[in-house]
């Protein structure tokens, strides 16, 4: 830790200060240093989307951003958005339609889907599929996920 740097950021609404190695990914920082294990590490090269979190309102890959780059940022994870109930609509639709199986991709999938929900407005299934095409799910075949997101988008009126 001889080259460690101090960072201060907001994670799920709480102030956090830590000393981190410059090479540490944001998702490893969230998981290892803060114990927020809801964001998952699937590929560590920015393809699978399992580590998707929100930084300053934009979704990012937690494995393609370093923890030091999040200094001064507002970071939100699946745990935070579950407790604030921001994800409640999507979670309900995912649950009812079984839009998850093993659940490893699900936190990242929800973060990506919520990005659509926040933009509001009706979208076609093809548009939903395209938006989620950066999030890999091996279990479901995606259809139930698209159904659930469609329902959540419809539900917001």
């Amino acid at each position, binding site marked *: 830790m001889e080259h460690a740097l101090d960072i201060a950021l907001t994670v799920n609404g709480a102030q956090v200060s830590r000393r981190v*190695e410059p*090479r*540490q990914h944001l998702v490893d920082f969230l*998981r290892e240093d803060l*114990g*927020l*294990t*809801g*964001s*998952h*590490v*699937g*590929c*560590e*090269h920015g*393809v*699978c989307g*399992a580590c998707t979190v929100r930084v300053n309102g934009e979704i990012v890959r937690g494995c393609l951003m370093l923890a030091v780059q999040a200094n001064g940022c507002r970071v939100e*994870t*699946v*745990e935070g958005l*579950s407790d604030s109930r921001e*994800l409640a609509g999507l*979670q309900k639709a*995912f*649950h*009812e*339609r*079984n839009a*998850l*199986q*093993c*659940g*490893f*991709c*699900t*936190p990242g999938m*929800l973060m990506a889907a919520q990005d659509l929900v926040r933009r509001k407005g009706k979208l076609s*299934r093809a548009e*939903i*599929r*395209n938006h*989620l*095409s*950066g*999030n*890999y*799910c*091996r*279990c*479901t*075949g*995606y*259809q*139930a*996920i*698209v159904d659930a997101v469609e329902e959540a988008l419809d539900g917001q009126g």
Partner: protein
Amino acid sequence: MGRAELPLHAPGTQTDKGYIGQSVPRPGAQRLLQGRGAFVDDLRFPRLAHAVFFRSPYAHARIKALGLEKARSAPGVIGVFDGRAVAEYCKPWVGVLAHLKGIKSPPQHAIAIERACWQGEAVAAVVAETRAQAEDAAALIEAEWQELPVVVDMEAALRGDAVIHEELKDNICFKREHDTGGVDEAFAKADVVVEETYHFGRHTGVCLEGRSILADYNAAEHSLTVYHSTQAPHMMQDIFARHLGIPEGSVRVIAKDVGGSYGIKVHVYPDEMATAALSVMLRRPVKFIADRLESFATDIHAREHRVKISIAVSRAGEILAFDLDDLTAIGPYSVYPRTSGIEGNQVVNLTGGPYRHQKYRARMHVVFTNKNVTCQYRAVGHPIAVALTEAIVDKAAAQLGMDPAEFRRKNLIPDDAYPYTFPSGIKFEKLSHHKCIDLLLQLMKYEELRKEQQDLRAKNIFRGIGLAAMIEVTNPSPAFYGVGGARISAQDGATLRLEPSGMVTVLCGVTEQGQGTDAIFAQIAASAVGVTLDKVRVITGDTGVTPYGGGTWASRGAGIGGEAVLLAGRALRANVLEIASQILKTGKEELEVKDNQVVNRLTREAKLPLEELGRIAHFRPDTLPVDFQAELTVTRHYTPRQYGFTFTNGIQASLVEVDVDTGFVKLLKHWCVEDAGTVVNPMLVDEQIRGGVVQGIGAALYEECLYGPDGQLLNGSMADYLVPMSGEMPDIVCAHVETPTRQSQLGAKGVGEAGTAGAPGAVMNAINDALAPLGARVATMPFTPQRVLQALGKVG
């Protein structure tokens, strides 16, 4: 015990099925939706150490020297070990089964000693305080290698140009021949003979959660607790016990949440065995999580077959015979304990499976190569058998000028012909091919689609429709592994317990990886006992608490575990009625359990809440007769025996559009009609099918583990190895025919692999149907744009 004790599918009865057949959501999904699951890498332990592996950069090389000293002195390092050091704690294994006659494989160590046989094989382990430190240290290991001749091509392996394991004399792991006799005669008298060779690419499971293990050895007790992302906790308990020399009862394997498995996580992996050994050696918890690059290089791969098949057909369109020659390559070792001979064996067993010909000949060779090992992955052999059967059937139909649907109807085994013995020797209890094809054609509006296809062809739009009928092995009896000497349980047990509060706890040996095991067990238990679903909790995946069982593979969860839960549920209800009879001083034949109450069977009047019964039985048994003991915990087991396997059947259809300028295949729609027997939860069954279909589509269009001539894996990352993503996938229409198996009371046959079994064949036939007017044809999976353009003669 009245009506509910009849099989759920008893003819002529109106059995109350309770929750069975209802699409209820999975209670266990809630924690996963909130990021509050417990995958192995989420667990936190005091003194946890992290293992990483130094892996061979060569496909085949002798280890001349291994310099570990620099790594040992790196910051945070706890230990660095070579194969010999680990072998002192972990015995090697040999992946053979006695009933696969002649199968051979050399002993395999947790960490390679002297020689590495594929690129990615572990040759040293580094354990450190953090994973980053372990990775830093692994980079300091200095290895000196002597490269050895590399065998990558399976034809060359079969020829034996170079032999990988000298002591085995050749590269043939296993071979099998099957011949009903009369095949040559059938071909001689056939009006039409069609032959084609199909190539199936190597691919892998790509579980989003990499293989994960955390082994926690307790030196004081000489006991080992392993938190493992596995499908088969009891199998692993046995293996850790025997190979590490710890009494079976002192090994506990716990599978909490498992982030995808699909057959990938049901095998013994050397690096995982090494991790358990390292925990013993270091007397502290040690964790290994395979990263994505390691996953591609070392998770089992599957398929890689070259199959030549011929079909003999009469002018009237009757299939007379199939003749098959399969060659498949499995890497340098047969994987322990299931062996790598099973996939080829399945191809021999299942090819031609839906049809009623009587003459069949098959020859199959399984060969060693210097690539990563292959073994059983979702649908094991079925995608090969179905695709090549269905492709050659289509080709024969085309030759005769017959519509592919009509040709299938003519040849599918009639629905009233069961029980039926197939020429490969396998037995079908009861299948429903004709019901399924009728439903499929109606569902997809086959005639309309054919017309649309013709109309679009006039506009140079090339659409294709592909059908794939299938059979699928499920619910294996001990004939699959047990008879061959593998300590893999074919039976499963379930324990049901009525708690003092009137709630029901279910414990079962089958495990949950997201397919919904826990949910369907809750449905079955609630229905069998007579409680509402909210009163049931299910515990799986812990050898310390659940009854012994095989776990999850071969689509056995519902059919075997579900039956054990049903039997235990009925036994618990009988015991509840005994107790109620004592408390109420009423004959138990007058009582029934319904909606958490003991009720009068005839009047339905509520007599006693289970909550009250539980209170009395647990806390006031003094109020019951002195010679009466309440038994509120029951265990029942189930083993399928009457048939070697239960078989399911179904048929899939794919609609594609081929862009003849770019070679891209666009999937427009997919249909699957499946007969999985009793459907416990239609929503979960449909989702199993959809997920399986998409895995099959991946194999057909995108996925292939590519190796260079030197045995180097060329595409071991998710950027280079393509998997299906949401943007390219079609909507998939599912429908069911229900023919319950009469072997069990529940009647469930299983459904986990059907989608994957049939999809590649359906997609292949759809592409070839689209290309037919252009005189082009593809036969090598995956059907990449390049291969499609090659077939069209547009690129070299």
